[in-house]
């Protein structure tokens, strides 16, 4: 992407031609437009606010809070205030690569290729490490929100908004990728307006786990929304795994217990400090985590929580903070960081936006003690520059990935950048 050649240096010679072409296009465009297509007789859908605004109270209607879109081109590392980034003593953070537009989920190929996905755009990229210099290739194009990616035994699995597909042997064919093979389709039957992107991870049982989020901020989900599901890549058979999950875009299995831990986004428009986003663990298949009835394990929803009790639902292991938007989450099983980091979790926090004073925009480390109690502390921070500004940050962490050498990669979709955090005990 960064190799794109500008037409402008040769503009002096080409300008006249282009202008003529453009004028010709103008004339073509000036023709009268076709008449409007008549509406079908059926009554149209009722006017509804955007999915991210749904559930606001009457006094929030003039709120200026809004989500932030990425800078779709990305920005070169040279334009970023990298000196603001902070990591604990002994650690170092640097840019591993720039030039990956809207860098979302990360997956590592068997031969060292880093695959990077898009959420709002439609591509999957491959980053090749050529002796310390990184080359970015666009490998897959024209997909529908291909946010979730997993690499396993030569195959890249991609979760689009509506289906999960596989690309076998892709790492040997980056310039001529194989056709996709569909594992399961029909995962977006309602064309849901919100939370339509999926995270994808491979379980210890060999099944692919994915989310289907709540279609709006706070609403009664259908039978296949607000859930974590799994599919057997061999048979395509889908099963429910956890319910009452508003939106999760980051989960991983504990290296020892093999239990599924996941980060979950709480609802918006309740207040600046309520409810907290959550870190959960699934102890058994079929557990319900509360959405839309109960938030943060202890607070009933003012509308959906009537006549319910939070004791019906599995509470979180840890409250991460209101609106911090925890995304990518992985356990650390590498060998580079100090021994006390082993089996800790790293969680990338992409928010907050639904809060008058912003917080988050960092990577946190979560430590679980012997009794299963968890605590978190900042690990990589400095993206949040002015909690009252719009936008308040210059970068947004999305996913984390432990490399073979034990270093940690962190993607940033706002800038199209992947950072590397390493540790040197000296």
């Amino acid at each position, binding site marked *: 992407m960064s190799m794109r050649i500008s037409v402008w240096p040769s503009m002096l010679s080409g300008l006249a031609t282009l202008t003529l072409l453009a004028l010709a296009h103008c004339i073509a465009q000036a023709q009268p437009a076709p008449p409007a297509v008549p509406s079908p007789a059926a009554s149209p859908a009722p*006017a509804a*606010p955007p999915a991210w605004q749904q559930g606001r109270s009457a006094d929030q209607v003039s709120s200026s809070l809004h989500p932030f879109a990425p800078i*779709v*081109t990305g920005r070169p590392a040279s334009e970023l205030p990298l000196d603001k980034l902070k990591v604990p003593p002994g650690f170092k953070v640097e840019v591993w690569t720039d030039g990956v537009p809207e860098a979302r989920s990360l997956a590592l190929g068997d031969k060292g290729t880093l695959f990077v996905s898009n959420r709002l755009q439609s591509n999957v990229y491959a980053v090749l490490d050529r002796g310390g210099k990184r080359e970015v290739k666009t490998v897959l194009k024209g997909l529908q929100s291909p946010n979730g990616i997993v690499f396993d035994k030569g195959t890249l699995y991609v979760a689009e908004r509506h289906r999960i597909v596989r690309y076998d042997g892709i790492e040997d064919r980056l310039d001529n990728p194989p056709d996709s093979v569909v594992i399961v389709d029909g995962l977006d039957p309602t064309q849901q307006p919100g939370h339509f992107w999926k995270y994808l991870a491979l379980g210890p049982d060999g099944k692919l786990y994915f989310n289907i989020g709540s279609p709006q901020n706070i609403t009664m989900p259908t039978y296949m929304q607000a859930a974590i599901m799994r599919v057997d890549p061999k048979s395509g058979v889908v099963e429910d795994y956890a319910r009452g999950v508003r939106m999760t875009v980051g989960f991983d299995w504990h290296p020892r217990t093999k239990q599924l831990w996941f980060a979950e986004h709480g609802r918006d428009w309740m207040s600046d400090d309520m409810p907290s986003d959550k870190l959960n663990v699934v102890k058994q298949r079929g557990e319900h985590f509360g959405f839309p009835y109960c938030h943060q394990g202890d607070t009933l929803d003012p509308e959906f929580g009537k006549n319910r009790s939070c004791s019906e639902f599995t509470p979180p292991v840890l409250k991460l903070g209101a609106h911090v938007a925890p995304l990518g989450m992985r356990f650390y099983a590498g060998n580079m960081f100090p021994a006390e980091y082993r089996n800790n979790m790293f969680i990338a926090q992409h928010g907050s936006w639904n809060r008058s004073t912003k917080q988050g925009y960092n990577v946190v480390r979560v430590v679980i003690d012997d009794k299963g109690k968890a605590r978190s502390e900042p690990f990589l921070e400095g993206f949040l520059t002015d909690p009252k500004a719009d936008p308040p940050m210059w970068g947004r962490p999305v996913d984390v990935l432990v490399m073979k050498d034990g270093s940690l990669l962190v993607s940033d979709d706002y800038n199209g950048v992947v950072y590397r955090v390493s540790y040197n005990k000296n």
Partner: protein
Amino acid sequence: MLHSAAAVIAPVVALVLAVGGRAAFAANADAGHEKAQVCVACHGPQGNSTNPAVPSLAGQPHQFIVTALFLFREGNRKDPQMTPIAANLSNADLNDLATYFSAQKSVPPKPMVDPERASAGKRLSEKYYCVQCHGPALLGQQHIPRLAGQQAEYLRTQLRGFKSSTRFDMDGVMTSAAQPLSDADIEVLAEYLSGLR
């Protein structure tokens, strides 16, 4: 005396500006101005379109212009005129063009004259939540376009495209928003928005 003093001061001012880091911005704006000469053939002087089917770019938010050009370049948003023009633009071109057009003053087409239709348009822009993302004055923000003073026929085409799900939509918000619009609503909204200052 005055003349000679000005002659001495001017180069000093230029030097201070350059050293102070303004030079990079000035270069961008100048580069954008130069590159924009191809665009204004259709989009009008300073990006104020006089062709009802071609959108005005003057006064659009910087991030919106970059996003729109990126979507054309990458082939997500398609248009027989824009696709080939955007195909060879570099990221620097996108930024320079956005810097130039976002800084131009919007000169809207002539306003809607019928006060009843204008107040109906205002009501619709609230009923259908246009003001919630595009801002209370519909001036746009960040990646969201300015609607005030936009060409009406262009707005109609976009709204019909969103309604029929044929217009690329990064996050689905506009596709959802357009579903309840009747053809009559689209007419009134487009006229109303086009007449806003």
